């Protein structure tokens, strides 16, 4: 039972990551691609936090009478990664707005087409 639940956690993480990857590959719309990138990021966060879990432990806030704590190191890394991820997303969205202003479209095939026409 335990091993089934564990396999299910990993399967769900991989599934989330691959859904985001599929969105990034399959869709032409740049905003949609960024939403897919966000899904990939979130799945990596889940994977790290799963590794930091300690059975029977509590949150890493020191208190008398608690023996086992979750591993604080993945938490710190993921805190940093969340903030860096939103910074990257913001820059990507700004580029999307700029591209839409310049080309009148967010469709990457159409934009590539426009560029070829200019050449």
């Amino acid at each position: 039972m335990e091993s089934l639940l564990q396999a299910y956690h990993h399967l769900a993480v991989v599934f989330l990551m691959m859904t985001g990857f599929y969105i990034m590959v399959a869709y032409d719309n740049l905003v949609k691609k960024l939403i897919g990138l966000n899904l990939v990021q979130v799945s990596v966060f889940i994977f790290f936090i799963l590794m930091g879990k300690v059975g029977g432990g509590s949150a890493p806030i020191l208190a008398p009478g608690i023996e086992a704590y979750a591993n604080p190191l993945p938490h710190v890394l993921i805190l940093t990664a969340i903030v860096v991820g939103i910074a990257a997303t913001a820059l990507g969205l700004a580029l999307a707005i700029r591209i839409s202003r310049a080309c009148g479209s967010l469709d990457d095939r159409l934009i590539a087409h426009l560029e070829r026409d200019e050449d």
Partner: protein
Amino acid sequence: MSGQLLGCALLTLSAVAAVIIARTDNLFSAALLAGMSSLLVAALFLSLDAPDVAFTEAAVGAGVSTIFFLTTIAATGRQYAYAPSRRVPGLVLAAATGWLLFYSMLDFPWLGDASLALHDHVARYYIEHSAAEVGPPNVVTSVLASYRGLDTLGEVCVIFAAGVGVMIVLGRFGHSGRAGQSSRRGEE
């Protein structure tokens, strides 16, 4: 055990949200579903004993990033992503990569196994010494602000660079921005 069942339920819900995001052509609902999925993941982090990460994910992942996506959709005025043009190569790539990842994950150690080497070195040191060496009872705070303070400084640099980048890209730098706009009007 019950915590793992709760985690499975939350993961299932966010996977369902991800599937709907992959299938819908409406960008507005995709952005809102991505925010909802982030909120579910924040609840999952809380059940995995990571309250700090849960707060940050709820505020940044579910709040700020949804606002950014909605602002972009409003600013570009484009609410629909037309049907995927590379559906078959995307599915094949995702299935192959996903199978490889899951296959390698089968060798991973048990969830919550306290005897892992992962929980032994710096993590144990932080838990045992941070109260005496740094002070706050929250170990994550001590590590973020003191032991790994240089990393946090780097993070601040990244945010600063991204902010400057967004301003340059959107042409919000006062004079130069207006000059850029007028030159573009000239081209038209």
